[in-house]
């Protein structure tokens, strides 16, 4: 075996051991990630059209403060943008949709 | 209204010690379950000023207090508003009794 | 894919201490703005004479945004001098029939990412409307002769 592939193998076994070591946090984080994915999906579904946080919350059945948190996060990572103002609220929409 | 600080020395005999530590922030009045005007800070302020006539204007007010202790618990200055109300009750009861004897 | 809608070039004179790091912050936030925007780093824009701005327009620069530090200017008195100079540049632009909106004096700080993008976008809208520098003269001529 070449030294490069030997190293690769070493990393692989190392990672396996590390995963075992951090099993608990990894499981918890994985669960959270799955939840997050679902919520993001639900929110993004609503964001095909420009809409406000309370409207998303209502339609998706997610508490509004949580919706706002995800919208802020999605905006930060370039997936959502602010469109315009609707009364006291702002409307957001997914970048892909626009 | 004229200030008569001597009055407080009388109150001390009825177990009041901490009233001057109040800096009149109003927490006691707003936290009091009675929700009654400026009560109890009003009485604290009158006690500080020695405004005996004001206290005796409507002494019944003193007995509204539930003695629940929330004002004392939340007082930012540990001025023990509850202690003053109780002390004033004692002062007034004592006065009533003495006036009766006269 | 060439963006054919880009109507011309925008020069941004950005102060070293505020606006230039502000433009960098736009990049760090991975925001986007039209690519016809060229940011030049300057210690203080008070350095440029009136002629510099006019020459830029002559050379074909469609618009200039001066992004200063505003009141936070580290050079005492420089900002006031700059503001006065820009007033004179506006006069000269008017004399030459240049739309004064092609030159804008703003203040942008190190973290004003949104303000930066807003300024750039607004200027792009404007030059789309105005066309290349100098074309106003013809319009004016037309207007006067009419």
């Amino acid at each position: 075996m070449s030294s490069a592939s030997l190293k690769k193998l070493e990393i692989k076994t190392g990672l396996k051991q590390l995963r075992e070591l951090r099993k608990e946090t990894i499981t918890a984080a994985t669960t959270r990630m799955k939840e997050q994915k679902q919520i993001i999906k639900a929110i993004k579904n609503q964001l095909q059209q420009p809409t406000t946080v309370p409207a998303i919350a209502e339609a998706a059945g997610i508490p509004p403060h949580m919706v706002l948190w995800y919208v802020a996060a999605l905006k930060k990572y370039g997936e959502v943008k602010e469109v315009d103002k609707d009364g006291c609220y702002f409307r957001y929409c997914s970048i892909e949709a626009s | 209204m004229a200030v008569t600080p001597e009055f407080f020395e009388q109150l001390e005999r009825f177990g009041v010690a901490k009233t001057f530590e109040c800096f009149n922030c109003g927490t006691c009045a707003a936290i009091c379950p009675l929700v009654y005007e400026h009560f109890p800070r009003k009485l604290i302020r009158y006690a500080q000023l020695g405004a005996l006539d004001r206290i005796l204007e409507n002494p019944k007010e003193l007995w509204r207090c539930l003695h629940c202790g929330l004002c004392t618990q939340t007082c930012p200055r540990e001025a023990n508003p509850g202690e003053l109300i109780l002390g004033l009750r004692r002062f007034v009861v004592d006065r009533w009794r003495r006036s009766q004897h006269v | 894919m060439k963006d054919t809608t880009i109507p011309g070039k925008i020069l941004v004179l950005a102060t070293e201490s505020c606006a230039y790091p502000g433009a960098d912050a736009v990049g760090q936030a991975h925001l986007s703005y039209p690519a016809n925007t060229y940011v030049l780093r300057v210690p203080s824009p008070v350095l440029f004479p009136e002629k510099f701005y006019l020459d830029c327009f002559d050379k074909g620069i469609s618009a200039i945004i001066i992004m200063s530090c505003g009141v936070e200017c580290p050079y005492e008195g420089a900002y006031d001098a700059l503001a006065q100079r820009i007033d004179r540049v506006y006069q000269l632009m008017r004399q030459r029939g240049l739309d004064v909106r092609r030159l804008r004096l703003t203040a942008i700080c190190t973290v004003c990412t949104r303000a930066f993008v807003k300024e750039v976008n607004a200027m792009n809208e404007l030059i789309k409307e105005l066309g290349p520098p100098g074309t106003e003269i013809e319009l004016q001529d037309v207007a006067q002769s009419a």
Partner: protein
Amino acid sequence: MREVQIDSAQQAQAEEKRVGVYICHCGGNISDHVDVEALCARAGQAPGVAVARTHMFMCSDPGQEMIIKDLQEGKVNRVVVASCAPSLHESTFRGTLQRAGFNPYLYEHANIREQVSWVHHGRPATEKATALVAAAAAKAARLEPLEPIRMDVIRHATVIGAGVAGLQAALDLASRGIPVALIEKSPFLGGHVAKLDNIAPSNEKASELLTRLTRQVLDQPAITVHTCTRVVGFAGCVGNFTLRIKVDGEQGQDEGKKLHSMPTKTPRRGVFLPQYGVVTGSCPENPAEDSIETGAVILATGFKPYQPMFGEYGYGRHPQVVTLPEAIQALAGENGSHPVWHWHGRPIRNLAIIHCVGSRQIPGVHEAAEGAALNEYCSRTCCSASLGFANQVRENYPVTRVFEFYRDIRTYGRGQEELYQRASKNRVLFFRFEAQEPPRIESNGTGSESPLQITVKDTLTFGEEVQVAADLVVLAVGMKPNGIDDLVEMMKLPVGSDGFLLEVHPKLRPVELPNSGLLLAGTCQAPMDIGEATNAASAAAVKASGLLARGFVELDPFVAEVNLEQCTGTGACVVACPRDGALQLAEVAVNGKPFKKAQVSPAFCLGCGACVAVCPTNAINIKGWTLKQYEAMVDAIVADLAA
């Protein structure tokens, strides 16, 4: 007159500029959006460019080695790196040039990550990157080597004012081995602290504190104390100031400060005299002048207490209305033989203290003394001083009742809120008034024991009017800047709207004045308490010490430079220059003939370029940022190399 030779031919013969352009992939950060190879090819065709290369990471060692190799082999003598923002790696690549034995300023940075690949995509990104690289190359071809301006400094500092701030600054500097001249106009050391008794909130004795501090100063051989001395002349720039000083002598002193008017007949050096300060020796009888060569000057000229106007809260009208310093002095003078504090033979049973006298004044509400501005600022120390005084009275004379009338209690500092609470525990009674309705002081009617009566609309008592009898009314007066108009004029010191000296920036350069080498310490800058003033003094000392530590200062090379050949001596630049002393017209003999030419004092020049814009012949430029360079950059951007 300066002699210069201008040889036009020499300039023409300048070395050939060969620019090397080095483009960074940034591991895909740039190369994913910018066609780096195409960019490199186009850069190679740009005017003046001798070499164009790419690398995965320019900032890595191999990347930098590549540049060094090209430089050392003579392929290039100017460098452009196109990579991330200059704030990250400009200094890295300047260092690269230095390591290759080149002047670090022969470097120009092209920002194609933060301002290109992270904000634009596809072909426009590559086009913009091309233009920016071409612009950088155009500037690089016009770069000249620069050297930091190095100025020798005199390792000596001067401190003006011997209050606690001045004393502390002098001590700190001396501890770093810097000789210090400490200049004080009175015969005493200690300033206003000498007038205090107990210092709130820690209750230290002012006398002990001053004795301790001055002993260190007097024992410090590196400090020369000049009492009875004023500064009468000032010249020079950072590192090389000349101060003319005048010893006033006994005759020149204010009546109150004369040595012979002091309570002790034979004052000994180092002895603390209450109200006066620490004695340093006797004042010379006759005036004398001298001069001091110094590298840095710390201003510690202090404050003076606000003097109430006649009738302000009854001041001057009623003898029982006094200022806090007066009351502190009187109380300190009590020997404690009476159980009651007596003032001019009268017992003080009711004492009132009124806060914010001469501070926090509001236009339209307060009146200023004639010719003076309103003191809109808070004097910061009076709340604690009043409370400390109130506690002292209550604790030493429990018979005396104390009433305080305040707008806001500002016990902000460490131990101060505790001082306020202690006053409450001591049963000091507080009243709160609005600025629009201040307490009224009137003579008490007959039959009353106390001579004065105070009426106040008390917001703590639901806005009712409350009357308090008073035997003595103490006005907690604020701080005013000391009268130093002569120094302000002479040293061109900036003064803020509050009358105090104005620092360059409260956070970036809090103890510095725009004139490099001049520093601020203590209450000449703003009201402060003792701890804050000594902190400010130490902060000023550390700046002075930093300036003087190496025996020279290095200033940025980016200052104005005059091309004497082009300069026609219009003087427009001098008018435009915002900085006193940076530019002047001077007689210069060019090739033997005298001309008026602009002359830059690099130590003063800020490098803003206000001069550049107004020169009709473009004879003046900021080194490293010349107008020609900018014009070349604009040309390169317009030229559209990519098209």
